[in-house]
């Protein structure tokens, strides 16, 4: 590998190490980037990818090692120096101000602070020229907050290019994008590489790494695990290198459904004067998983709110364990042993500033096990959290540590553990693996399958086709607030589900019977 780099690499990271307390985030990492190359940095969450890039960009100072651009060493810990050397960074959580215009976001810091005027006209011309050159169309005077996420990312890229970046670092650029936006992004990146820019993108998605990159560096546990040309490897090998062992998503065994535990008929849910769910029918059975597949924004949020007791139906009937109910109540749901995995684990699933053990017992804090006469039993709570950490393999924290320090996958395992430990009769899982890496996905899937096997009725709401096909026994598609008739998992394939998700059947009489026969 080294014998072909006679030419000075555009970017060279040598022997970078970085520790945070006892945690080694980067351990002696060396990577070089050539001109016009599109390099993927592949690794699970917590493999040290983002730390490495933050060092490169001067946000962190490394404990050891150097960063060289065109053979010249960069001073450590100075973003300004990195920008001046031609390094641009596109952050996962954009470094943009929603209340400012596109042009203002791009121009910040590009002029001497004490100038009497901003050179707005020249800046606009330069921005438009760059946008034109790379096909990144955007209105310079639009307020950033009014743009879609994909457009905001374009602004983030333009900002780096405006600063004359020749090396572009993108931190998990597709995490927030739709599939179409992601494809468009990668064609832009390829075009940039063709025009002589050098790019590194960070990812844990095997598909996009294989499709887009020239070369792939795999990080694992803070070290370089391997380096491959994209043309000389495959997804299976990369997955194994990334996780350190063979990963296979767990297989679903045939279900043995029991009694119906929840039933909704002709249920309508409105919010803000709009019918979010229209006359939907579905039921949940013990020991069976119902998968709701659909493109996000078609009513999933309302369905998940309804099932978590956060929204009330405007019309229709519900039966919980055979009893008619008019609305589900959060407190009753918890008491009845209904587990919920909310869509947004950071906002609804856990309270980041609180300790892990507090989050573990939060739902049930009033139960005698965890509190008596208004006094919390810390020991019991901590013991419970320790059990979850042990059994559900939550890494990166003790019962007393802050929950926000956990990675997404581990936080999800904590939430899963809190719910599944009680053997819930019903589990509502909304997008349970969104944003998680391969290893964590497999772990979450295994837990959900195990719960089902033990008799839990599972409602899985997801926009991931593979996930729904892998986990669900029956599948209904959601489109424009309506639910299709269920199909058995055996009859499901991506093509048929794709057609169902497009909502063709909604034009007929909605939810009834065989409206989707043309799709089979």
């Amino acid at each position, binding site marked *: 590998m080294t014998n072909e780099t006679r030419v000075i690499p555009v970017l060279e990271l040598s022997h970078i190490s970085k520790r945070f307390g006892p945690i080694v985030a980067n351990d002696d990492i060396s990577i070089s980037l050539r001109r016009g190359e599109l390099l993927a940095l592949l690794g699970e969450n917590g493999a040290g990818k983002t730390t490495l890039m933050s060092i490169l960009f001067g*946000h962190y100072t490394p404990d050891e090692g150097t960063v060289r651009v065109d053979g010249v060493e960069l001073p450590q810990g100075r*973003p300004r120096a990195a920008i001046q050397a031609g390094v641009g960074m596109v952050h996962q959580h954009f470094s943009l101000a929603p209340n400012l215009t596109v042009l203002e976001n791009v*121009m*910040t*810091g590009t002029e001497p*602070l004490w100038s009497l005027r*901003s050179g707005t006209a020249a800046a606009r011309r330069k921005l438009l020229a760059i946008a034109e050159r790379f096909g990144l169309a955007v209105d310079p005077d639009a307020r950033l907050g009014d743009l879609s996420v994909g457009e905001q990312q374009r602004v983030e890229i333009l*900002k780096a290019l405006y600063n004359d970046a020749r090396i572009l670092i993108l931190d998990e650029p597709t995490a927030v994008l739709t599939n179409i936006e992601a494809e468009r992004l990668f064609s832009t990146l390829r075009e940039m590489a063709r025009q002589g820019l050098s790019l590194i993108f960070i990812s844990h998605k095997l598909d996009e790494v294989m499709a887009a990159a020239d070369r792939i560096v795999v990080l694992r546990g803070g070290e370089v695990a391997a380096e491959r040309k994209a043309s000389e490897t495959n997804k299976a090998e990369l997955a194994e290198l990334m996780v350190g062992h063979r990963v296979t998503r767990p297989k679903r065994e045939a279900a043995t459904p029991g009694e119906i535990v929840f039933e909704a008929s002709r249920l309508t849910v409105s919010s803000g004067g709009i019918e979010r769910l229209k006359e939907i029918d579905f039921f949940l059975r013990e020991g069976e998983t119902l998968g709701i597949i659909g493109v996000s924004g078609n009513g999933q949020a309302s369905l998940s709110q309804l099932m978590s007791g956060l929204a009330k139906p405007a019309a229709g009937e519900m039966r919980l364990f055979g009893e008619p109910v008019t609305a589900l109540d959060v407190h009753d749901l918890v008491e009845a042993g209904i587990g919920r995995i909310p869509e947004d684990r950071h906002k609804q699933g856990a309270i980041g500033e609180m300790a892990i053990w507090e989050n573990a017992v939060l739902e049930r804090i009033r139960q005698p096990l965890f509190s008596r006469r208004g006094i919390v039993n810390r020991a019991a709570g901590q013991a419970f959290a320790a059990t979850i950490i042990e059994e559900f393999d939550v890494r990166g924290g003790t019962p007393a540590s802050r929950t926000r320090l956990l990675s997404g996958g581990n936080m999800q395992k904590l939430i899963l553990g809190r719910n599944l430990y009680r053997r819930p009769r019903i589990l509502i899982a909304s997008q349970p693996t969104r944003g998680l890496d391969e290893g964590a996905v497999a772990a979450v899937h295994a837990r959900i399958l195990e719960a089902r096997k033990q008799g839990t009725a599972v409602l899985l709401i997801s926009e991931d086709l593979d996930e729904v096909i892998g986990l669900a026994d029956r599948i209904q598609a959601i489109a424009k607030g309506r639910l299709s008739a269920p199909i058995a998992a055996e009859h499901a394939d991506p093509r048929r589900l794709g057609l169902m998700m497009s909502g063709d059947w909604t034009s007929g009489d909605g939810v009834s019977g065989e409206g989707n026969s043309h799709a089979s």
Partner: protein
Amino acid sequence: MSAFLDIIASAGLWAAVLRIATPLIFGTLGALLSERSGVLNLGIEGIMTFGAMIGWLAVFNGADLWTGMLVAALSGALFGLVHAAMTVSLGLSQHVTGLGITLFASSLSYYIFRLAVPLASTPPTVTPFQPISVPGLSDLPFIGPALFTQTLPTYLSIVIALLLAYIVYRTPLGLALRMSGENPHAAEAQGVDPIKVRYGAIMAGSALMAMGGAFLTLSAFNSFFPTMVQGRGWICIALVVFASWRPGRALFGALLFAFFDAFQLRLQTVLGNVPYQIFLMMPYILSIAALAVMARRARVPQALMQPYRRGER
């Protein structure tokens, strides 16, 4: 009804509006500057009081009026430095620090005043700023006496408002200021140091607040008493929201509030049978109503009241 019109048609009302508005303009601009950088400064009430005291004391001890204003501004900047050290460097609660500064600065004002000026039955006075007639303009009928016979600090406050509007929206410094208040991480990533920006904005803003206080003792009145700021600082904090953090609207908001105030004073003499407390309430009630309408569309600086720590997201 004609009584209302008579009041509005009197040049004296409009002259009073500008005079009453001046300390509010200074204070509001100061609070706005600080908040645009992302830091709320509730020290304003105390800083205005201290500015009123120290400015007056300087003049009482023989300094000229502009030196008094300057001394007030410097004292304000010093309190701003304390606020910045606590809220920016240490990342402490901006509410608590600000209220602490208000309590401390108010008490300290009275303490220093008591030490420096012996207790007397009639408060000692200084010769305040005199109204300056703007040549040419002050001779205009109605408009002349209404708008162009103010003291110099009043004209200065309006110039500063326009200047600040220009700086905020038209210069790289203003963009750095706004970016620090919207997203300090983005500012840092673009090579702007949000910590320096915040220190600068808080100190400059506090200097303006103190000048607003000094206007009370050196122009509106000629003596100092400890309760003279009378909640003007809190009005300024509300006016910043009313103005949606825009300097031009801040100027307008201060003038509007001053108009209500001047109007109710004159109304009291016309409608003698209504309890005067009703009139005193009027500017506040109308301000709350205006706030409710305007503030709903306000775009709050996204990082307002969020401490910035380098390297932490």
